[in-house]
Structure formats: structure tokens, C-alpha cells
């Protein structure tokens, strides 16, 4: 900013139009995370003279960089941790560039602090993962990547730090990047940028590094300035308004205050209240600055309705054509944050949007080992453990699947005795009352030969390729052709086909919504057994509901489930009509036919999309083979 060219009014105008990006930083103790953050703050001029002076004093007392001011000390806050030389709690930092304001959730990298990582990640749009170039990928790097992925972060920036210690060599960076991408691919991480940096001298932090002319990508700060910001504000998302507070300022004013969790709302919109199901329409969107015509996600507003329907905190307003789930039980991924373990059968208080309700974990489907990503049977969840659990309330709860709408699918559990926050959860699917029984005295037996050993013998990773799409889209055709190609290459696979399964295993099931759920559940379990045998399982079913596909995904270990959307427009499928079923459905001979009188929910974030309208069968197979190699499913 030059003295003469500076115009304060211009600046104010520009500044008021800045966006806000929140990101989380993670890395192990020695990756130089504090130094990197200190460097970012320093380079973006957030460090003032008196702070620099204090830094000079502190560097001499606690520093590790000799005579150079130790930038890490700018961010290491509490006395105790400064003395121990490690960061032990989430700290929030702020900086501004020409384009954006940033909030950093600075997370500790120490082994025991999964809980803090998860806390910091919960509000972030992006994760900055630190890797030490001189020591490569660590167990912790993998664990942190898994955790930020678990928390729904879809943008990752990997800073390969301390490039000075490896003489800025490109091949060292390339090796780390490859190894990281291999691991991230297994998890299904997609938005990934790797940057070679040196926090100590600022190379590729905010300045392009002349030390590494071979690197042509963005610096860290550029990358942060260009990252996507919370897409939930998009108007395509369903409208969710959990009522936080009822404003009764006078006898004739009753307003419902809250923060839009997603989507948008306009004056005059018809709305449905849940769980009651009562309907009304929006009379006014009240704000201190005048009534609004519309409001979108993240805005804190007050709504007045046309009709006097009695609503209270914890009720939701939604649009009738995009309903959330209402159920008394659900399955969720849980992160446990308390010294006292989570015990099935014990009651906790749930906080989900503005809903407060007692819930009881019924059982733990499995626990996830964050180092190997393997699933293990579990009777309880200890501090920092992650598990897939079923929770039940005594009343109906309103929620969404976290993967689709994080703000209305996330919750915390509170200990009823000491009021501490003990767990965080992400809802996967609702559980209806029909198919949720579980045998009480049967436990999973670990076998002598492990799944990995079985798969390695076959030069593959156990995987379920889940083909979903309309009837006639080409699921069975493509899956068949792919299986033949796998067979020719010596891989071991099995194709589960919809019709074949319905003729045998699922002969007792029809096509009602409940039966469809059970159909998919059984197929999921069979797929799981086959994956346990080390096979590549190809499952070709319409599987129209997202929640059911999510249920199968959860049965599998992370990265084992690959969702393949066999995509063709309904008109094309109907023209093809290989089995004459569309004609029968149109004629009313068969009911509940997907695409005609039963909905198909396309995958929101499929691993692969195959467009059978444009590609030949061979092209489809080639594309899938390339993908499977790249993802490490097929070895050699």
C-alpha cells in the first residue's frame, strides 16, 4: 500500500466486500506447523511491533531457532504448552489479504488430541495438512487426513514443509506427493493440492520460491485465496430452518428466530413445520434493517407466519417438496471426546441444530482404527475413538444425512451428570422400526486368514463396486463387461445382479419402500462377506435411495465402497426398455417403478460417473479399469 495511492474510501469499499474462509491446520508435532502459521501471519503483516518485541524476548527464552526470531512462538499460546514446546488446544488466528479474511483453527498434532482436531475441522471449509519433507508421510498425517475427511472437509492443501532440509529437490517432493495421493485416493479424497514450502524462509508460503523453479503451482496464500467457500449457501440445497428462539415482543407479534442451516426462503413460500407436519406460509422475513424478500443459508433471521400455529424451539420449518428425515433412531459416525467411555445403554443429551433430546446409544456397529482404517467390533468407545453407532431417542427427531447437509446432520452428546460435551456425531441414515433388530448374543469372529492376506494373494484390494442407476441405464451390461475384463487379467471377482438376488436370497421381498431398503441391506451384507473373502464385488442394483447406499458404504471399511453412477436420461432408458418394464409401468401393470412412480435419488458425489448415452461398452470398461488402477484396487 503506497502512501500516496492509498484511498481510504476505496479501501473501505473493498474491505466490506471481502469473503470469509475458515480453514484448519493439522500436522505432527515436528512438521513445523506453528512456524508455518507464524510465517503466514508475519507475511500478511498481522504481526505488530510490540508483538515482535515480545517475540524477541520469548525467542531467547523458549526459542529453537537461535538468533532468528522463532515465528512459531507467535502462535504458541499458553504458558504450560510453551514450556513443553507443544500446542495442546485448538487456537484461532485471524489474517486478511487483499481478497479475503481468514480464520485459522490451529489444531494440535499430538497423538492424544483427536478431539481437538475434530473440533477445529468442524467449522472449516478447507484443511491445510503439514508434512515434513525430511521424514515423509507419518502415521499421524494419515490419521489427520482421515479425520478431516470424516468431518466432511472436501478441500485439502498439503504443505510439504522443510524443503530446505532436502535441498529443495523435486524428486523428494514428487515421492511424498505420490504417496499422499495414493493414500488420499483410497479414502476418496478428491480436491487435493500439494505445495513444496519452507516456512522458515517463506518459500511458496506467500512468495513464489526461486529456490524451487521446478514448481509452477500456487503458493499457499494464493491457494487459500482461490479455494471454494461453503457451497451450502447455494440455492439448490433444500431449505432448513431450525427454530432457535421464539420472539414474542408483544401480543400481536410472534416471530421465529434462527439461523438458516441451508437453502433459501422467500416471502410467501409455503412451509411445513416438523415434526408436527402443520403448514403455513411466510408472512414476513423480519430483520432490524427492514423486511427481506428472501434469505439464504447462514443468515440469522426472524420469520413470521400467516397462520397461528404453535411452534417452539427445536421445531423446523422446511419446504414440503424437500423433507428431511423424521425418525426416533439413526445410525451415525461418532467421535468420543471424554475420559469416560461411551457405553451403550447409557443416556446422554443430544444437541442437534436447536433440538435438545435425551438419546441412548443402542450398540456400536464397529469401531474404526484411525491408523489402519480397519473396522473392529467394540463394546464401548474410549476417548478419541471413532465408531459407527446406533442411537435412539424416545421421541421423533428431525435431521438430514451429514454428507448431504452437514449443518442439519451433525450433533453433540452432553453428559447428563456433569454437563460436559462428550461426543460429536455425524448422521448417516435414519433407522425405521422394521428392520433394526439385532441378534444379541452373536459376535463377529475374527478368522485366521485376514481379509488383507486374502486380497493380497489375488493382487487386489477388497472392494465393492456399487453400480447405481435407472433400470435400462446399463448397470448389468457394464458390470458384466467389466467383470470379464477383470477375469481375463487374473483378478478374483463376483457380480451380484438385481434379478438373480431377487430370485433367491430376497425372494420374500417386494417393491415397497421398506422392502427396497431391506433388499439393499441384505445385498450390502452379502457384499461385505465377499469383500471379506478378498474379492472385488460388483453389485448392480437400481438402489434408488441415497440413505440405503450410504448404509452399505458404512458397512464397508473406508475406501472399500466405490459408488459408480451409470447415468443415462430417463427418456433413453425408456426407449431402450430391454425388459419391457417401462411399458408395463406406464400402463399401470406394475407399481412403484423407479423413475415412473417411485423416485430415483442420483448420487451427489459419486466416485465415478459413466455416461452410457455417450460411451460404448468398451469405453466404459476402459475408463473403469483406469480408475481402479489409479485408486489402487488392482495391483500390478
Amino acid at each position, binding site marked *: 500500500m503506497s502512501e500516496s495511492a492509498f484511498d*481510504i474510501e476505496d*479501501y*473501505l469499499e473493498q*474491505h*466490506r*466486500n*471481502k*469473503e*470469509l474462509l475458515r480453514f484448519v491446520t493439522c500436522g505432527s508435532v515436528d512438521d513445523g506447523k506453528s512456524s508455518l502459521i507464524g510465517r503466514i501471519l508475519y507475511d500478511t503483516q498481522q504481526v*505488530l511491533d510490540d508483538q515482535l518485541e*515480545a517475540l524477541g524476548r*520469548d525467542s531467547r527464552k523458549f526459542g529453537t531457532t537461535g538468533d532468528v526470531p522463532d515465528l512459531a512462538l507467535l*502462535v504458541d*499460546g*499458553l*504458558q504450560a504448552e*510453551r514450556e513443553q514446546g507443544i500446542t495442546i488446544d*485448538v*487456537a*484461532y488466528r*485471524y489474517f*486478511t489479504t487483499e481478497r479475503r*479474511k481468514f*480464520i485459522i483453527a490451529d489444531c494440535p498434532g499430538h497423538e492424544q488430541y483427536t478431539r*481437538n482436531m475434530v*473440533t477445529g475441522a*468442524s*467449522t472449516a471449509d478447507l484443511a491445510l495438512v503439514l508434512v515434513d519433507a525430511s521424514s515423509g508421510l507419518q502415521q499421524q498425517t494419515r490419521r489427520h487426513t482421515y479425520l478431516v475427511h470424516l468431518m466432511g472437509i472436501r478441500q485439502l492443501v498439503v504443505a510439504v514443509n522443510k524443503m530446505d532440509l532436502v535441498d529443495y529437490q523435486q524428486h523428494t517432493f514428487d515421492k511424498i506427493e505420490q504417496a499422499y495421493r495414493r493414500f488420499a485416493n483410497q479414502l476418496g479424497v478428491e480436491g487435493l493440492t500439494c505445495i513444496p514450502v519452507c516456512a522458515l524462509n517463506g518459500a511458496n508460503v506467500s512468495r513464489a520460491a526461486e529456490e524451487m523453479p521446478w514448481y509452477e503451482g500456487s503458493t499457499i496464500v494464493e491457494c487459500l485465496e482461490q479455494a471454494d467457500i461453503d457451497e451450502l*449457501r447455494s440455492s439448490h440445497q433444500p431449505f432448513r430452518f431450525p427454530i*432457535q*428462539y421464539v*420472539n414474542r*415482543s408483544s401480543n400481536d*407479534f410472534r*416471530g421465529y*428466530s*434462527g*439461523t438458516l442451516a441451508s437453502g433459501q426462503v422467500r416471502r410467501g413460500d409455503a412451509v411445513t413445520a416438523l415434526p408436527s407436519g402443520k403448514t403455513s406460509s411466510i408472512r414476513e422475513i*423480519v*430483520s*432490524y434493517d*427492514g423486511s*427481506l*424478500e*428472501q434469505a439464504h443459508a*447462514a*443468515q*440469522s433471521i426472524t420469520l413470521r407466519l400467516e397462520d397461528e400455529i404453535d411452534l417452539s*424451539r427445536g421445531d423446523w420449518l422446511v419446504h414440503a417438496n424437500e423433507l428431511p428425515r423424521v425418525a426416533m433412531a439413526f445410525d451415525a459416525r461418532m467421535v468420543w471426546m471424554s475420559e469416560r467411555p461411551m457405553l451403550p445403554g447409557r443416556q446422554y443429551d443430544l*444437541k*442437534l441444530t*436447536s433440538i435438545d433430546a435425551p438419546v441412548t446409544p443402542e450398540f456400536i456397529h464397529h469401531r474404526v482404527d484411525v491408523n489402519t482404517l480397519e473396522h473392529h467390533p467394540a463394546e464401548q468407545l474410549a476417548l478419541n475413538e471413532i465408531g459407527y453407532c446406533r442411537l435412539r431417542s424416545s421421541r421423533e427427531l428431525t435431521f438430514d444425512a451429514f454428507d448431504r447437509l452437514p*449443518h442439519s446432520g*451433525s450433533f*453433540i452428546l*452432553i453428559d447428563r451428570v456433569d*454437563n*460436559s*460435551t462428550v461426543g*460429536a456425531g455425524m448422521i448417516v441414515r435414519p433407522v425405521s422400526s422394521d428392520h433394526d433388530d439385532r441378534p444379541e448374543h452373536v459376535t463377529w469372529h475374527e478368522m485366521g486368514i485376514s481379509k488383507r492376506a486374502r486380497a493380497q494373494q489375488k493382487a487386489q484390494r477388497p472392494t465393492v463396486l456399487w453400480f447405481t442407476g435407472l433400470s435400462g441405464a446399463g448397470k448389468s451390461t457394464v458390470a458384466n463387461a467389466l467383470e470379464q475384463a477383470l477375469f481375463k487379467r487374473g483378478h478374483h471377482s463376483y457380480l451380484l445382479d438385481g434379478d438373480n438376488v431377487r430370485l433367491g436370497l430376497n425372494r420374500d421381498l417386494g417393491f415397497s419402500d421398506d422392502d427396497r431398503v431391506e433388499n439393499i441391506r441384505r445385498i450390502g451384507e452379502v457384499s461385505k462377506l465377499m469383500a471379506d473373502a478378498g474379492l472385488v464385488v460388483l453389485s448392480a442394483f437400481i438402489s434408488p435411495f441415497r440413505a440405503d447406499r450410504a448404509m452399505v458404504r458404512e458397512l464397508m471399511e473406508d475406501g472399500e465402497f466405490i459408488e459408480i453412477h451409470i447415468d443415462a436420461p430417463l427418456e433413453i432408458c425408456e426407449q431402450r426398455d430391454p425388459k419391457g418394464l417401462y411399458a408395463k409401468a406406464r400402463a399401470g401393470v406394475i407399481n412403484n417403478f423407479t423413475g415412473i412412480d417411485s423416485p430415483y435419488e442420483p448420487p451427489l458425489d459419486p466416485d465415478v460417473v459413466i455416461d452410457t448415452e455417450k460411451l460404448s461398452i468398451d469405453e466404459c470398461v476402459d475408463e473403469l479399469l483406469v480408475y481402479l488402477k489409479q485408486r489402487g484396487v488392482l495391483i500390478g
Partner: protein
Amino acid sequence: MSQSDQSCWTHLQALEAESIHILREVVATAERPVMLYSIGKDSAVMLHLARKAFYPATLPFPLLHVDTTWKFPEMYAQRDKLAAEPGIELLVHTNQEGVRDGVSPMTHGAAVHTDIMKTQALKQALNEHRFDAAFGGARRDEERSRAKERVFSFRDAHHRWDPKQQRPELWNLYNGRVRKGESIRVFPLSNWTELDVWQYIHLEGIEVVPLYLAAPRPVVERDGLLIMRVDERLPLLPGEQPSIESVRFRTLGCYPLSGAVRSDAATLPEIIEEMLRARASERQGRAIDHDESASMEKKKREGYF
């Protein structure tokens, strides 16, 4: 600040919406909330946000001013003007024991004065009214130990803050549960920076104490701080002579402890411009933070806001 334009959701709109969410959450869940009102710029912003959060209703909680009796006259004027507004309930509490014992920054030093007249006074007021949630205008960017402060900061029955007992805060799900005697300090401005605060004051036309704007004022220089001589209670040292200088304040507290900065910034845009060029943080003008860099953490453990 109108929020209707979807194409441009700015950081100030995001911060405003987050703060309003926090304010409403406390009122919806706490039994006896109160807002600490220090008369400073952060309090002014917090109060403005509260008016927005509960519009068209008046504030559903009282304001509490902990009065050390050493504030600037302009601050008392601002406070009394506010107290006269319809719908505002303003409580003022002073530690009478401290007054009786003649505690002052001059005789007892900054640390003792602050402890008795601020920290202890605050505890007395919270206990007396049995408040279970208290809003404060602290921001995480103010000081290093604040960077780890929660939005909902749990205090035990003795108002103590224990960094190890703080509850994890995920998404926007805040846990404000307390047992009898315990309380929560809530910081709706946690994610605001000093620059955000001034930008917002400018945009929203929020009234602040005129001392934030530069004007000729009588000051003496002591221990590197420019102290404004407000009244006779600040004795001049031998040979000391107040000089008239153009100064303003970045933070306001007890006048003998609040250092002014030399400045000609007499309007909000000029303040913001000056801040962009500034090379010192706002707490530098506070005598109380000067001793050692971990002093804030110590004070918080003892119950300071």
C-alpha cells in the same frame, strides 16, 4: 447491514450472523443472562448486535456495568445516556469494600486495583444477581491466551477458568449447561478482529465514546504511557506538567491505566486508515498487560473477564 444480496456474502455479514446466533442461543437456554457493558467500542458493537438479534423486542436481559469509579467522564456520560433509553435495564455495581479501603491505581498499583475493583467486583455482582450466563465483548485476536478461549467459556462456582476443563466446541452447537452456582461467559465477538470492529462501527453508524477520536487533550507521559489527566485524583509528580496533545485511545478503561496514542485521526475512516498503518497492537496501551506476556492467562484463571 442488509443481508438480502445473495451474490455477496461478506465476512462482516458472516460475523454478524454468527454473533446473533450466539446471542439468541444464550437467551434461549440460560435462566438469567446478563451483558457486561464496559462502555467501550466492543461493548457498543455487542449491544448493537443484541438489538438486531431480538428486534423488534427490547433486550431480554439487563446490562451490567462494573464501575471502578475511575472511568473517563465521557464514558459515564455515554453510559447514563444509554441507561435513559426505554427498554434498557442497566445495573451498575461497585465494590464498596474497595471504595471504603481507598483502593486506587495510584496507591495500590494496577494489578491490585484491577483485581479488587474489577475482578472481585464482577464476581460480587454475578453472585448477587445469580446470573448463569454473562456476555463479554472479548475477542480472540486481542491477546495470545485469548486465541484458545471458547465462545462459551465455562466457569466453576468460584468463577475460575481452567484451560483443561473447557468444553469442545463443534460446528455451531454450543453447550451452555451449568449446575447451580456455575456459569458461562459468552463471547459473541470471538471471531472479530479490531479492524472488523471499526469497519462495522463505521458501516452501521454505531455511536462510540468520543475519546476514540483524536482531539487536543491534557496528557502526561509516564512509564512510556500517555496518561490523560482527567481530574485532581491523579497527582502530578514533581516537575511534571500536563501538555496539550492531539491524542486518541484505542482501548478505554480506568483513566490512570489507559494509555493514549498521539494521533490526528478525528473520523472513523481516519482511524481505520491509521490502524492499517499501525505497528502496535491495541492492548499495548493497557498498563495491566505489561508485566509479562502470560499475564492475561494468569488473570483469567483468577476470574478476570
